């Protein structure tokens, strides 16, 4: 862990990104404590009010507190982002490992499947899966996860092939280490490190995708406090009540910038592909 921090702290951008992301994580974690109102509590008499003492960031067309919705939105964004990437990573790991280790026809078949997934732009895939699975927070997570399996599987397979060819794997074989132990002890740790960096970078993609889906009305279901959804809801009031779309929009942009900076920094520090470490 020590060397992890040492490497990351060397990148100024990464630290900056980490700070931004850290703030949002805190917002997400402590949303129930920080939010003054229930995010779905409607108060029609106070609808479309500008920022004030009672509603720091104003209210939307249903009288819901924008600030509270924004805080819970952070929770949702990060939650969906992490969950979908984690699931996609798991799926990609399984497929990539099987393909890389077994080779032959299995590898061929799995990789053609991956090719098929990769042939579609991620957003099209996500839309298609939402169409099949239905709308809702969990469905969005699954849809995104499936569209991530493809890229991850490819990365895992190529990493597995690369690491498999390195002398220390063969040396372990020569020592008599049983195959399962070689995979767990020698192969996986060397594959996972660069994979984690790739996963981190994907989280911002996930968040952008889910916000996009929600914006178009095919993601989460209202009144879930999702930034994309809020921005969509505020679209009609952009001249009258710009704060509805404005604040969540800024929050989304900031989080994405923070994640990108952090991801770049992690990649520069760690990913052997890009020549770091």
């Amino acid at each position, binding site marked *: 862990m020590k060397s992890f921090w040492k490497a990351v702290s060397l990148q100024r951008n990464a630290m900056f990104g980490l700070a931004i992301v850290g703030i949002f994580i805190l917002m997400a974690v402590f949303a129930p404590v920080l939010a003054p109102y229930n995010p779905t509590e409607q108060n029609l008499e106070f609808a479309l009010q500008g920022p004030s003492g009672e509603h720091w960031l104003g209210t939307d067309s249903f009288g819901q507190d924008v600030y509270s919705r924004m805080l819970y939105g952070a929770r949702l964004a990060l939650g969906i982002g992490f969950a979908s990437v984690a699931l996609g990573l798991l799926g990609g790991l399984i497929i990539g490992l099987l393909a890389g280790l077994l080779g032959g026809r299995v590898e061929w078949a799995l990789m053609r499947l991956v090719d098929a997934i990769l042939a579609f732009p991620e957003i099209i895939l996500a839309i298609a899966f939402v169409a099949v699975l239905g709308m809702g927070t969990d469905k969005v997570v699954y849809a995104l996860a499936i569209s991530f399996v493809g890229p991850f599987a490819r990365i895992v397979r190529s990493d597995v092939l690369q690491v498999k060819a*390195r*002398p*220390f794997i*063969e*040396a*372990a*074989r*020569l*020592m*008599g*280490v049983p195959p399962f132990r070689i995979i767990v*002890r*020698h192969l996986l*740790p*060397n594959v996972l*490190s660069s994979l984690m960096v790739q996963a981190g970078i994907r989280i911002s993609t996930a968040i952008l995708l889910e916000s996009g889906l929600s914006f178009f009305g095919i993601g989460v279901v209202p009144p879930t406090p999702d930034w994309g959804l809020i921005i969509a809801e505020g679209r009609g009031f952009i001249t009258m009540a710009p704060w509805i779309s404005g604040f969540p929009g800024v929050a989304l942009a900031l989080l994405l910038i923070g994640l990108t900076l952090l991801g770049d920094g992690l990649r520069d520090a760690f990913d052997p592909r890009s020549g770091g470490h």
Partner: protein
Amino acid sequence: MGAPLFTVLDVEKTYRVGTTPGTGWFSAGQPRLLKALNGVRLEIAQGDSIALVGESGSGKSTLVRLMLGLEPATDGRLLYRQVDIGQFDRAARQTFRREVAFIYQDARGSMNPRMRIRAILAEPLRLYRLCSESEVEGRVLALLEKVGLSADLADRYPSELSGGQVRRVAVARALAAEPKTIVADESVAGLDVSVQAQLLNLLRGLCREMGLTLIFITHDLGVASYLCTRIAVMYLGRIVEEGATADILHRPMHPYTRGLMRAFPSFGRPLTASLKGEIPSPIDLPAGCRFASRCPHAVPFCLTADPVLKHPEDADPNATRRVACHFPIRDILEP
């Protein structure tokens, strides 16, 4: 004399490297074959120290890979303790892996970069249950001491060690499983002279002290003579000369061995490029003696018949000496 530990019987290893273009549109080309090993016959007894000496394309690394069971032979048999290594059952294979330790040329690459030295050395100990868990630490430190490394290196990663240190760790790891044989591939190449000398002394001392069988791959005749009592000179997939070190160095019989020795830099001797020409490619080997194209003593007969590795008639019958040459040279090599 006892039964030999390793037996290599007429082993061949051929790789397919692409195809020659066929004639016309529809005929498939002929496969191009790389004959890495072309009929190798060797016996190694317990306690022997033998050096496999050769240049690029000699097949020495391939031979060792086959002997270790990493790849199957295309033809011929490889025996360990009279048992074909391809026929090992699980228990026999485990024993084989434990008794024969291999030290890679790329010592650093042969270690998991994410494991500390302590874990790297403990792995064989735990694998073969050589001691209780509480004794592992003590054993690891003892191993480090045996190869002349300080205990504080146990916490480091391979990337943090110098070239010489990492090779010593490789030796320590090889010794950890208490093997009977050590096989090393160019373990001292590319090192500073003083580091190389330290490592050579270490290897020699350990092998002698522990009665280990040593199989050492090298291109350096000096290293071969320092470490091993037997030398097998290889050229293009065949052993061309084999025998006791002192014997071979004193009276090399094969023209290639003589050329090799003359080319070997030595103090007080002027530079001699005794062998002209390039080392031919192992693909599409010529008929007849494979060395004929570069041999200063070649005669037309040499191009027709491939010499067999055998005991030369007039050599001392007690000496284990074999040469693959139609006209082995009898005189002592002039310094």
